[in-house]
């Protein structure tokens, strides 16, 4: 198989384990993001794929070959670093052609490869500049150009957009996605930003504390998060969690408010304490329903974010319609039928 196969990979620094047996299959041509809070091991895993960190246990297989003991230069990968890591004493063209120069490729070939990549990335006019003469977004593009020129089996991106301002980040996000659609090179992309992960990836790997929490397509993670962590991590604003109790097919909060439940798996759940999850965008203001008190109103133009209290629990709602609700008002909420998620209060795993 082409692509990347990670099997039971572990990483330990002395007695400290940072990655505890991670297995991920990445298909040929797939765009996979590793996402998770800082310290979850996603960058370490990427660096292990690149060969910049040793693998303590398990195997990493790139394009049908176990690469555990293969040095980075022979792994047929290219990496884009968070700080771009451009060589300051080389021009843009020299930066991009460096790997080919090391392979003793002849000059004409290097030039055509560099020109081709520059064309794709709109860098043609900047080829003679030095990195210090470029803006952040341009440097980012040069770093990508350096990767493209090599035409590798796998692209590795290590939080490549985190040094850019918000607007540029959105722009580069679609550029990278467009680039992938054009080149169809297998890509592993590390980010802590779930929006980046959602918008770009074919497949998302959510990690926490050196373990994989869930692997899936962006919308699958959004629609059916496997546990409380993924539910809270994917989506913005994050999913609301309301502690409740499941009794004979009814969900009742600790404050005695009954929450709607269309879950068909009711019988299988059994009576127990649960966490009831509902996304902010799945709530609407209605004439009747679940009573709530408005704490804060944040209009953003396209939609309005309402911070509410349902019983003792703080809840966020995002509504499309303009609202006249003011802090202190009592309103009623309707939840979109079937949009609720139920998690075991004890382990956090999805019920149903």
């Amino acid at each position, binding site marked *: 198989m082409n692509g990347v196969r990670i099997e039971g990979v572990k990483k330990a620094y002395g007695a400290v384990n940072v990655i505890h047996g991670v297995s991920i299959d990445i298909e040929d041509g797939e765009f996979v993001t590793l996402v998770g809070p800082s310290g979850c091991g996603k960058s370490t895993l990427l660096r292990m794929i690149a060969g910049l960190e040793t693998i303590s246990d398990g195997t990493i297989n790139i394009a049908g070959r176990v690469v555990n003991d293969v040095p980075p230069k022979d792994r047929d990968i290219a*990496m884009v*670093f968070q700080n771009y*890591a*451009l*060589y300051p*004493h080389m021009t843009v063209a020299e930066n991009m052609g460096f790997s080919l120069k090391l392979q003793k490729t002849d000059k004409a070939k290097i030039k055509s490869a560099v020109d081709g990549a520059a064309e794709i990335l709109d860098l043609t006019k900047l080829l003679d500049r030095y990195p210090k003469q470029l803006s952040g977004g341009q440097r980012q593009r040069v770093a990508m150009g*350096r990767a493209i020129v090599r035409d590798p089996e796998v692209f590795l991106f290590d939080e490549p957009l985190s040094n850019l301002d918000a607007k540029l980040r959105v722009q580069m996000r679609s550029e990278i996605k467009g680039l992938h659609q054009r080149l169809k090179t297998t890509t592993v992309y590390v980010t802590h930003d779930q929006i980046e992960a959602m918008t770009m990836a074919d497949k998302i790997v959510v990690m926490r504390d050196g373990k994989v929490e869930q692997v899936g397509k962006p919308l699958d993670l959004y629609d059916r998060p496997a546990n409380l962590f993924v539910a809270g991590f994917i989506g913005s604003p994050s999913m609301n969690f309301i502690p409740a109790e499941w009794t004979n097919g009814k969900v009742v909060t600790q404050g005695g408010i009954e929450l709607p439940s269309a879950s068909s798996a009711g019988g299988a759940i059994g009576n127990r304490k649960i966490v009831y999850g509902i996304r902010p965008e799945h709530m609407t203001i209605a004439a009747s329903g679940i009573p709530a008190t408005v704490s804060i109103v944040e209009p953003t133009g396209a939609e309005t974010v309402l911070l509410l209290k349902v019983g003792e629990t703080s809840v966020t709602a995002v509504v499309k319609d303009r609202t006249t609700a003011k802090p202190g008002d009592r309103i009623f909420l309707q939840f979109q039928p079937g949009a609720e998620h139920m998690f075991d209060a004890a382990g956090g795993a999805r019920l149903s």
Partner: protein
Amino acid sequence: MSAVEVGNRGRSGPGSARGVYAKAGVLPVFEKQRQRFFWLLLAPVLAILGVVTLLPTLYLLITSFTPLNLANPATAWDFSDPLVNYRTLLTDDRLHNSLWVQAKLSLVTVVLQLLFGLGIALLLNVRTPLMNALRTSFLVPMVLPPIVVAIIWKVLYSPDISPAWWLFQVLGWNIQTPITNAAWALSAIVVADTWEWFPFTMLIILAALAMMPEEQREAAVVDGASTWQLTWYITLPYLKQTLMVAGLFRLIDSIKTFPLIYILTDGGPGSVTEVSNYYIFVQSFSFSYIGYSSAVTMVLLAMIVVLSWVIVRAVSGGSNGDQ
């Protein structure tokens, strides 16, 4: 780059505030008070500096216009022919020879110190306890008093007591000591001087290496660079500025070479190891020609000032050169 940049940034705080006021044409009272306070704090240092460095230099300059000879104290204020010393030094072959010796010694030692310093720094730039210990031990030559260094090499170069010559004897080699051999005496000084001062360049290069962004090396490794290619294409260009500054520092310092020559060769055999600094010493303290040696010192001082200016230019030029 960062140190200089940070320095500039630090200065821009009060500086920019003053800039704003300067445009308006008046300084507010608190700003004037602050400036007065700064001057008050600086004054003692400036006064001491003036007394211990500027005044002696001035006296040196004045003396260089007299034919002062300690045997005849009246010559201290004899300004009848103020340029006599400067005319003499134009035709003084022994002085010219000393400048030539100085140039050879300086160039060769600086190049060797840079090469050894660089090589050893690259080898030592690995963070392990063993390497840390080694790093410290490599600094020993530099921190020893120069006269002790000279004595160590005097012992090493003396066949009767040198462990090296004991070894040569065991091996059956008959080798003459270089310090009494006109063809090899300067080389003997070069070896000792390089040993004494390569730790300095090594230290500066190690500091620069420690600040080198790790991602650049990693990018090159992923790009396919071998260790040699990494050093040649990435590390050395990164160190260019540092090497230049370290080299210029050593160049200036090399003009002040004295203990090694005084102890090892006395400037000899003949005058093959007589550098300008040593020649000045001989003129003043062996022959008591204080006036003439002051003039030679002024020339040397002028050379050092020019070199220092080059260093300052190089260092400040580097601050906006990197990244």
